[in-house]
């Protein structure tokens, strides 16, 4: 514990000064590796309940994660981080118990994600059982849409547009960038973090409290970028590219004093600003695109 605090204190000092960070780099790396390995020993059966990935292959040297504070996250590390964030988010709000709905969203989502060019991750999609109107993306391809938002959708192209925006956050690694910036500072405040079954304590220390990172939001330019990139993913998948704009139009028309959108507006620019920014980028570039909106196949949630 003392060592941990000392290491983190050094890391904070070095973080604030670029020159000092260079000198302390190696010492810091060793210290963090030691810390992370220690943390790992307390969680030997971390992935025991995970059937998806074979245990020996997914084994990661925790030291790598320490190094990731300075370098790039590997796809495995990214998945580990995303899995922890997704598991925490699901602790706040469960999934809708509707196999057909969830399967439908995964089939649509994976098809759109195939147009993103990222083949090194496995995509997961889920509809969250809350009236709140929002959608979330976590690193490693974990994407969630709330029931409140899903129920406002009119066709598959709109679903594809919403999912494409979130997929873009993942492929552009927006959350990882935020995480990297705040991880050292966040870790200091997280010396005593919750312990929960199957939870990845090492990653938890990096991401902060629960799924707080989902409430922190991104820079507004990251949101505009995800709209701009997402609309193209949906169009490449063969959908009518106006699905996402139609959803933004719908949200723009909602009453402002609506508790269902308070978190959305805390973490995203207003839909009118998003439409305006998207309009500047799209202009006439999508005029020739002829996509499908598939209202007949859209799975309606009661």
């Amino acid at each position, binding site marked *: 514990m003392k060592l941990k605090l000392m290491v983190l204190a050094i890391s904070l000092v070095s973080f604030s000064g670029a020159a000092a960070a260079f000198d302390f780099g190696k010492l810091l790396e060793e210290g963090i590796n030691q810390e992370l390995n220690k943390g790992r020993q307390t969680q030997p059966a971390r992935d025991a309940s995970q059937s*998806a990935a074979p245990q020996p292959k997914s084994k990661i040297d925790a030291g790598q994660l320490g190094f990731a504070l300075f370098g790039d996250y590997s796809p495995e590390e990214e998945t580990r981080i995303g899995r*922890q964030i997704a*598991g925490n988010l699901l*602790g*706040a*709000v469960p*999934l809708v118990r509707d196999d057909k709905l*969830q399967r439908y969203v*995964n089939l649509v989502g*994976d*098809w759109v994600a195939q147009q993103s060019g990222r083949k090194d991750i496995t995509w*997961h999609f889920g509809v969250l059982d*809350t*009236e709140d109107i929002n959608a979330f993306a976590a690193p490693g391809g974990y994407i969630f849409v*709330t029931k409140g938002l899903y129920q406002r959708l009119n066709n598959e192209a709109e679903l594809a547009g919403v999912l494409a925006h979130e997929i873009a956050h993942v492929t552009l690694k927006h959350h990882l960038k935020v995480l990297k910036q705040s991880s050292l500072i966040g870790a200091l405040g997280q010396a005593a973090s*919750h312990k*929960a079954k*199957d*939870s990845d304590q090492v990653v938890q220390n990096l991401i902060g*409290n*629960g799924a*707080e990172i989902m*409430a*922190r939001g*991104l*820079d*507004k330019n990251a949101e505009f970028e995800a709209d*701009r990139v997402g*609309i*193209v993913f949906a169009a490449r998948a*063969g*959908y009518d590219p*106006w699905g996402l*704009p139609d959803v933004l*139009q719908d949200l723009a*028309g*909602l009453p*402002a*004093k*609506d*508790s*269902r959108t*308070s*978190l959305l507006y805390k973490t*995203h620019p*207003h*839909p*009118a*600003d998003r*439409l*305006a*920014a998207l309009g*500047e*980028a*799209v202009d006439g570039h*999508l*005029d020739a695109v002829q996509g*499908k909106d*598939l209202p007949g*196949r859209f799975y309606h949630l009661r």
Partner: protein
Amino acid sequence: MKTFLIPASLLVLCVAAASANAAPGTVLRNDKLYSQPSAASKQAGSVAKGASVNILAKQGGWLRVTSGKSTGWIRLLSVRAGAGGLGGAGLGDVVGAATTRSDPSRVVAVAGLRGLNDEDLKQARFNGAELAKLNTWQATPAQARGFAAQAGLKTADVAALPAPQPAQTSSPWGDN
């Protein structure tokens, strides 16, 4: 019962159609009105940022609107629907005051439903059972391709959009 339901649903349709006829909107950027939903068609006028329009119809990426004496088709992304004016870009207080980002505990219960908030997410504990449930619904790339093909979805060659000029309008919704 059935004979009653049909006129009732017709009434709903009429009301919806009537409100669609008069749907207000606000122009988000200076743009042209065209005589057809196509940039190749004859120009029918122009509208300035901030102007109020009535939205008459929608077709693909186009809206048919009236603005003053002009009627024509405008790009969907050049107009915001609803009576909120320029929204985040201009009249921040009209909408901004309601969705305060300073106090997450202040729940404005207009809809009578409580949304997710910071505290819910902060307090969240890892739920391995839900995560395992999520995995059961996962689609393989081949399954997703098959599902897309069933509906006749075909990949389209669409170029990435250019990044915008650096100057973005500032938003009272915050820069978080």
